[in-house]
């Protein structure tokens, strides 16, 4: 199967030194990354600042040639993928700066020349929906407005793989909702694959089918969001002597904390027998934000 995006054992680090007389320092940004996106999935990419999200996206797009391992777009190596592959993908960067053009509508017409199946009418429809002024120079527009233009441009050729790096970071709640609606109503169908990084977990919870969480440059978790929510629980034990022994036998527990006579811990996968003991107080379901915080404590 030709996955829209696939990475195999990919690692990368930047080499640099602050001053010429210093020893060069290796700064690892990605460690043993391996995953694939199935067609039709919408994946939310999560991680704290500096976890490696942008580097992962840049490797996926072929903007970085990884030192180890490979990234593939529809079966072709990202680093030297050809024109046909590039026609099928789109990218919305964190910061979009193309202030040279006199206005967004002119820019979109020029942009469209690079693509075989550009739908100018569709792009203009989205630009109007987002309230982008027709005759205002780009340098007079706000960061949020430029981000909206970048989103509209990315959809113009109806890419099979859409990669967005914090597309909504500068958008207000109303525009964020509009953005999600455009994605669902006007763009997505079962042949379109989306990967988007965001810190706004409630957006991810609305439209993502899967989540990919990066922590310390590695993949911590890549799972269906529904499964994750059904399986992940935060347990609270009352500290009877048996509880401490019992706790030792549990594998893969996260963020174990003790306060007075209580122990809390988190499990991302259901384990047989959990919750059956006499001393189990509660098993609490977590939303994505709570889960993300638990994974980082």
């Amino acid at each position: 199967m030709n996955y829209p995006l696939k990475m195999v054992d990919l690692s990368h680090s930047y080499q640099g030194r602050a001053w010429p007389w210093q020893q060069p320092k290796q700064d690892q940004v990605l460690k043993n990354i391996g995953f694939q996106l199935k067609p039709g999935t919408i994946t939310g990419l999560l991680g704290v600042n500096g976890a490696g999200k942008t580097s992962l996206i840049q490797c996926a797009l072929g903007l970085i040639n990884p030192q180890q391992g490979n990234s593939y777009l529809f079966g072709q190596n990202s680093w030297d993928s050809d024109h046909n592959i590039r026609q099928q993908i789109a990218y919305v960067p964190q910061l979009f700066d193309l202030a040279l053009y006199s206005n967004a509508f002119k820019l979109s017409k020029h942009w469209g020349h690079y693509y075989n199946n550009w739908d100018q009418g569709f792009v203009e429809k989205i630009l109007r929906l987002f309230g982008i002024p027709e005759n205002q120079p780009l340098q007079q527009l706000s960061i949020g407005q430029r981000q909206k233009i970048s989103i509209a441009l990315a959809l113009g050729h109806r890419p099979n793989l859409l990669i967005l790096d914090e597309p909504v970071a500068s958008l207000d709640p109303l525009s964020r909702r509009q953005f999600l609606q455009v994605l669902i109503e006007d763009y997505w169908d079962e042949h379109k694959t989306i990967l988007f990084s965001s810190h706004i977990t409630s957006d991810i919870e609305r439209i993502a089918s899967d989540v990919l969480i990066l922590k310390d440059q590695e993949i911590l978790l890549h799972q269906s969001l529904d499964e994750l929510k059904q399986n992940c629980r935060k347990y609270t034990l009352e500290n009877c002597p048996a509880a401490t022994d019992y706790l030792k036998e549990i594998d893969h527990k996260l963020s174990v904390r003790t306060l007075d006579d209580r122990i809390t811990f988190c499990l991302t996968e259901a384990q047989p027998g959990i919750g059956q003991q006499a001393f189990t107080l509660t098993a609490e379901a977590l939303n994505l934000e709570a889960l993300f915080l638990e994974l980082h404590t």
Partner: protein
Amino acid sequence: MHKGILFSINPNTGTPVFKQLVDQTQRLIARGQLKEGDLLPSTRELAKLLTINPMTVSKAYSQLETMHLVTRKKGIGMLVNSAAELGQTQQQLFQPALIETCLQGKQLGLSLQEIKALLSKQWRTME
């Protein structure tokens, strides 16, 4: 009437969205707001209305189909079956919420009487 407006979901909780849709449909059938022969909104329509992933709606509909609560009619859509298919009464469907309420009350050290009083008070504010 468009049945979509009967649904409301909160994606920002620990319960998967498809599960919320399934549970809600059960309650709507039990209450009689969805009747035998009613047409559910199409996957796309409901996804659009609630701003959620269309696959999530399909997943919920498939599960409802497996539970015999709805029937997929080609070219028409999802039709609601008789409430008799529920196999659960309104009281049984209320059970999980009841258990959760009692559990939380106990954890907070409330007595049965206090919980009863709070319940009536809350009930009155919603009447």
